[in-house]
């Protein structure tokens, strides 16, 4: 096959897109400029607007063009060379064999123009090392194939992929592991109730109110003051109903937002296995495609919450290194699936069998968890009760509830050592099951706080690469002797798994 050796520009429509993208910023600048000037100074206002337009035309537009003209890339059979920069020129060489991941992203607007952006990620960094924004979609797929072929030269399987011209769909070739129906994606959104959305909605509403400049008085004027007073007094009478309704409405809104966000992100979710890479593609408005080399996967994590568990649903995530960890959903392998399906999918990634039973930690864990909950509760209730509002002490009626929660924490926490893996289960509201192959262990830590030492228990943790985004697979509150035995057994497992 012929390698491109001449320098390439980005697709010409990139110019149009960049101009389009700069318009909101201009509009915002004009809007804020006019808003800050009072109506009486109309001439000044006009001057500001004209000035903004002129500077936009004289500076921003030429910059966009210059940036486009200066940007070029070249793919040789060994590396990708990207030249860029208007004021400070830069030439970046990325050896193809070092590229770990080629991600193709298609946001809605570029998609309408038939464009894609290509992101090249290498092992060394967590961010994209080379970004081509934008190329035609065919070109994007070409680049992806060239890079992919480079790293799989030994494997003849890639021949077929090269011969077939890139189709309109994003779906890459390979062994299809997971394909989620719309119903599944909807369900995964429905089960993922997140409080974050509530916070976003509330702060969003406050922002809209501020931006639009509508005050309570405006609303009263609009309804009519007599009616408004009537409404207000009625509201006071049934205040708690209104409060409840508000909470309920916010919850429903948050839930709907969660569903919509999930569907937009994971629509048409597909996971392929091609040679030694996972290829994941999904998205409704923004299409995303990413490669995850199997050898970079450090651990598998099965996650669920009580609602999902009630309906026997789980989701599978991956702990990887050298991957865009900051991106939400960056570690997703299967957003929602039955346990049997996930085990089957997981077997292609790293074969594992879930243990029949978990070893429980010491019952001291229940006591310590409960004490910690009580301390946290008192930290809130005591100052509030003593200085602000005496009734706050009634908050202690939730103590039995905390007891139940602590008990569940204890019952749900456990570990198991398989043939070549460690399994750690933890959490009630957010339940995690870590599956860590022995060969991925980096270090072992036994930690004993003052209280733990007095109670004769320790926390055992194994360190793995690429963690930190998810919680850590600590085994909390195991008896001291067991802790040392556990570390010895795990270390032995590591030794066996890396033995030549």
């Amino acid at each position, binding site marked *: 096959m012929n390698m491109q050796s001449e320098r390439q520009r980005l697709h010409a429509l990139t110019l149009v897109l960049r101009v389009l993208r700069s318009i909101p910023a201009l509009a915002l600048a004009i809007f804020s400029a006019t808003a800050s000037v009072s109506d009486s100074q109309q001439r000044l206002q006009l001057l500001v607007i004209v000035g903004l337009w002129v500077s936009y035309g004289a500076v921003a537009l030429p910059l966009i063009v210059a940036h486009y003209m200066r940007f070029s890339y070249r793919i040789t059979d060994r590396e990708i060379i990207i030249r860029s920069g208007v004021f400070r020129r830069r030439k970046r060489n990325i050896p193809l064999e070092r590229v770990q991941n080629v991600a193709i992203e298609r946001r809605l607007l570029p998609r309408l123009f038939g464009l894609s952006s290509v992101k090249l990620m290498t092992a060394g960094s967590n961010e994209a090392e080379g970004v081509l924004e934008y190329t035609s979609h065919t070109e994007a797929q070409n680049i992806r194939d060239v890079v992919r072929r480079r790293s799989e030269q030994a494997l003849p399987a890639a021949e077929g992929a090269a011969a077939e011209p890139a189709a309109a769909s994003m779906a890459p070739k390979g062994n299809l592991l997971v394909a989620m129906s719309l119903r599944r994606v909807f369900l995964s959104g429905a089960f993922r109730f997140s409080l974050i959305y509530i916070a976003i909605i509330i702060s969003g509403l406050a922002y809209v109110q501020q931006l639009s400049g509508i005050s309570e008085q405006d609303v009263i004027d609009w309804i009519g003051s007599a009616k408004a007073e009537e409404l207000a007094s009625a509201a006071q009478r049934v205040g708690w109903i209104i409060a409840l309704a508000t909470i309920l409405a916010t919850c429903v809104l948050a839930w709907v937002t969660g569903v919509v966000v999930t569907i937009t992100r994971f629509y048409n979710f597909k996971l392929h296995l091609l040679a030694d890479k996972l290829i994941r593609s999904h998205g409704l408005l923004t299409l995303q495609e990413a490669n995850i080399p199997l050898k970079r996967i450090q651990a598998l994590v099965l996650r669920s919450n009580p609602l999902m568990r009630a309906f026997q649903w789980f989701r599978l995530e991956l702990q990887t290194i050298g991957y865009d960890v900051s991106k939400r959903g960056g570690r997703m392998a299967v957003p929602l699936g039955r346990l049997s399906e996930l085990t089957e999918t997981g077997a292609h990634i790293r074969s594992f069998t879930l243990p029949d039973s978990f070893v429980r930690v010491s019952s001291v864990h229940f006591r310590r968890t409960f004490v910690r909950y009580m301390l946290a509760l008192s930290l809130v209730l005591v100052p509030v009760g003593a200085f602000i509002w005496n009734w706050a002490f009634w908050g202690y009626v939730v103590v039995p509830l905390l007891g139940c929660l602590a008990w569940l924490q204890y019952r749900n926490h456990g570990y198991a050592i398989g043939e070549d893996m460690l399994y750690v289960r933890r959490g009630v509201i957010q339940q995690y099951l870590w599956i860590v192959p022995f060969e991925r262990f*980096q270090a072992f830590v036994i*930690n004993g706080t003052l209280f733990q030492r007095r109670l004769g228990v320790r926390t055992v943790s194994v*360190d793995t690469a690429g963690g930190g985004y998810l919680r850590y697979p600590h085994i909390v509150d195991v008896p001291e002797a067991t802790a040392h035995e556990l570390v010895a057994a795990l270390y032995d497992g590591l*030794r066996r798994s*890396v033995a030549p």
Partner: protein
Amino acid sequence: MKPLAPAIKSVWRLKIALFWVIVLVIAISVDIAGIAKADRTLPLGLISAVVLVFAIANVTILPSLRYRFWRYDLRAEELALTRGIWNRVHTIVPLRRIQHLDVSQDVIERNFDLGRLVVHTAGTQSSNVVLPGLDFEEAERLRSEVKHFINEYAV
């Protein structure tokens, strides 16, 4: 398991003292600023006195306590560390997991001819494990020993 070089106590003492001197200076200046004020809620010099007591306690007690609980051992295949007054932490780093390692010393440590061994792994929480308070020669010896192991293992 071996203890650290006793000289590390002096290093720690100096570093802790330096920290507390800064805090003390701040406390004294707060007290001085309070002289002019008529409506003082706290008696003059109380903040400085409290800080001074804390400073003396920390400088005298902390280094020897820390020293007492620090232990290390370079075994055939792993580096083991134990440390911590309240939180007793026991770390085992398999030598084959070490990515690279440094020996370093700062100005204070240089005066006492001490060095520290810093071991880097690919892990997340223990991505760099620090073993302070080694005689500089001992630190270099440990480094070459670990390096030797890594080179052997790589072959």
